[in-house]
């Protein structure tokens, strides 16, 4: 084929659309049938295009083939037809309408997102299913992202699909009264999906970036829809923009993490920062302050490289608020770092010792950092403890560099 990247690209963008539209039509019980038809369509494309060349409008070609395959499936499979066609109103097998208009594709994907992020399904499985069905990720890619094997992922997805069936999850937009609760779950899943990409230990840089971009795309879909365009959804998108603006700066050529203060800010993506600011403004309507508002605001201040007391005081107060509504060890450690910048190292050391996160290597790394210049012996001791607890070689290496700097 002349364009070797075309098919994978189309798979990424079109697989989810075909699957969502078909599954919406068939019902969640037949998610696998929808997936099979979508996969078959791409197989047909591969077989045909290899010999006959790429059609003028590849997407239209895929849709036409998918429609035909779906219709064939209806007429071939009598039981399927009997069961399903009852549900597909006013249709007989051969006249079945498969609506692949932009609007319907968008609606089906959104409804699918709500179905896959149903509260009955474990968070891990929600992420896995979303990656598979709405992001077109392969099983081995998902396995790589989760640092596990294909078998585990296959089992997890299988169980999740079973659950969708037994819980009789509908592919539909939740009602007005339910939407906030359900949207909460969806948003949490997308937040975790993004974090999976951003913080994953996986060495596959391209895959990790893809994960982040896909999460952003799905959030963007929510922002684009009137019913789901809530301030906290905008806040999450803003947060993702700010974080991903540093994607290229936070790892060096050897794949090691580059700490914030050592980052080359010319590598920060300013277009994404501008977008982040835009969505942060959008998020500031309404009176409810969510964790995403606070985190996006923190991330905003981090896009300003210059150290000012205003910057660190703001970050400290935002962490103070964030911890009150959503505690996490990493937020507690970051808060203490901001405290040292705003109120001084002595106060921060006292507060840090109360945190008691003694199984966390970042805890000792923070203590090492705080003691540096105050009590270097203590600093080195803490850094050494951090190395002992660190899980990856690149983390150990990074902390060792801190010790070397003190000993110089």
């Amino acid at each position, binding site marked *: 084929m002349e364009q070797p990247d075309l098919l994978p690209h189309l798979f990424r963008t079109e697989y989810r659309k075909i699957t969502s539209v078909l599954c919406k039509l068939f019902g969640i019980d037949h998610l696998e049938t929808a997936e099979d038809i979508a996969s078959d369509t791409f197989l047909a494309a591969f077989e045909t295009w290899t010999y006959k060349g790429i059609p003028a409008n590849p997407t239209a070609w895929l849709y036409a083939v998918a429609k035909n395959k779906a219709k064939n499936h209806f007429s071939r499979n009598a039981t399927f037809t009997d069961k399903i066609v009852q549900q597909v109103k006013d249709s007989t097998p051969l006249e079945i309408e498969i609506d692949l208009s932009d609007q319907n594709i968008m609606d089906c994907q959104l409804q699918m997102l709500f179905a896959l992020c149903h509260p009955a399904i474990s968070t891990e499985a929600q992420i896995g299913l979303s990656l598979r069905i709405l992001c077109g990720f392969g099983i081995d890619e998902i396995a790589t992202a989760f640092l596990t094997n294909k078998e585990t992922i296959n089992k997890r997805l299988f169980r999740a699909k079973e659950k969708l069936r037994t819980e009789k999850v509908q592919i539909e937009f939740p009602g007005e009264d339910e939407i906030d609760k359900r949207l909460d779950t969806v948003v949490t899943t997308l937040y975790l999906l993004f974090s999976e990409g951003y913080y994953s230990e996986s060495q596959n840089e391209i895959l990790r970036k893809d994960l982040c971009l896909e999460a952003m795309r799905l959030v963007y879909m929510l922002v684009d829809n009137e019913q789901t365009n809530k301030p906290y959804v905008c806040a999450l998108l803003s947060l993702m923009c700010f974080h991903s603006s540093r994607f290229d700066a936070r790892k060096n050529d050897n794949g090691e993490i580059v700490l914030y203060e050592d980052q080359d800010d010319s590598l920060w993506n300013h277009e994404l920062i501008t977008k982040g600011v835009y969505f942060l403004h959008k998020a500031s309507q309404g009176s409810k302050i969510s964790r995403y508002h606070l985190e996006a605001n923190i991330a905003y201040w981090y896009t300003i490289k210059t150290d000012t007391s205003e910057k660190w*005081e703001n970050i400290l107060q935002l*962490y*103070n608020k964030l*911890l009150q509504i959503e505690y996490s060890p990493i937020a*507690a450690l970051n808060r203490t770092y901001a*405290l040292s910048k705003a109120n001084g190292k002595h106060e921060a050391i006292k507060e840090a010792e109360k*945190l008691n996160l003694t199984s966390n290597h970042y805890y000792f790394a923070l203590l090492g950092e705080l003691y540096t210049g105050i009590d270097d012996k203590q600093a080195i001791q803490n850094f050494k403890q951090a190395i002992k607890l660190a899980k990856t070689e690149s983390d150990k290496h990074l902390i060792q560099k801190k010790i070397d700097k003190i000993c110089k």
Partner: protein
Amino acid sequence: MDEFILIFRHEDGLKVASPEQIQAWMKQTMDWIGGIAAQNKFSGGNGLPFADSKVVWHNNVVTNGPFGDIKETIGGYVIVKADSIDEAVGFAKGCPVLQGDGNSVEVRKIAKRDGIH
């Protein structure tokens, strides 16, 4: 893990402070609460503004504000998680309200709704 309420008592709630002083207290209070939250020991809390406050007495007599007959007023509270009263007292000791002479923080265990307490 039990919950304890820390009740801030001001000796004289009508004392007027300068805006700078209020600003400084606010920061200290936010940092103090943030420190408790950073240990995952924060459960809730609120300030109690003096504006729009009434006291209802025996026989439904209503008076303005908690001032006048009672000099001491409650300025706010936080609820913390702690393994013991001593741990809760440890949190209370850091409360910026205590910088005011005559002010106090009352530490009280919150009854569990387990039918025993």
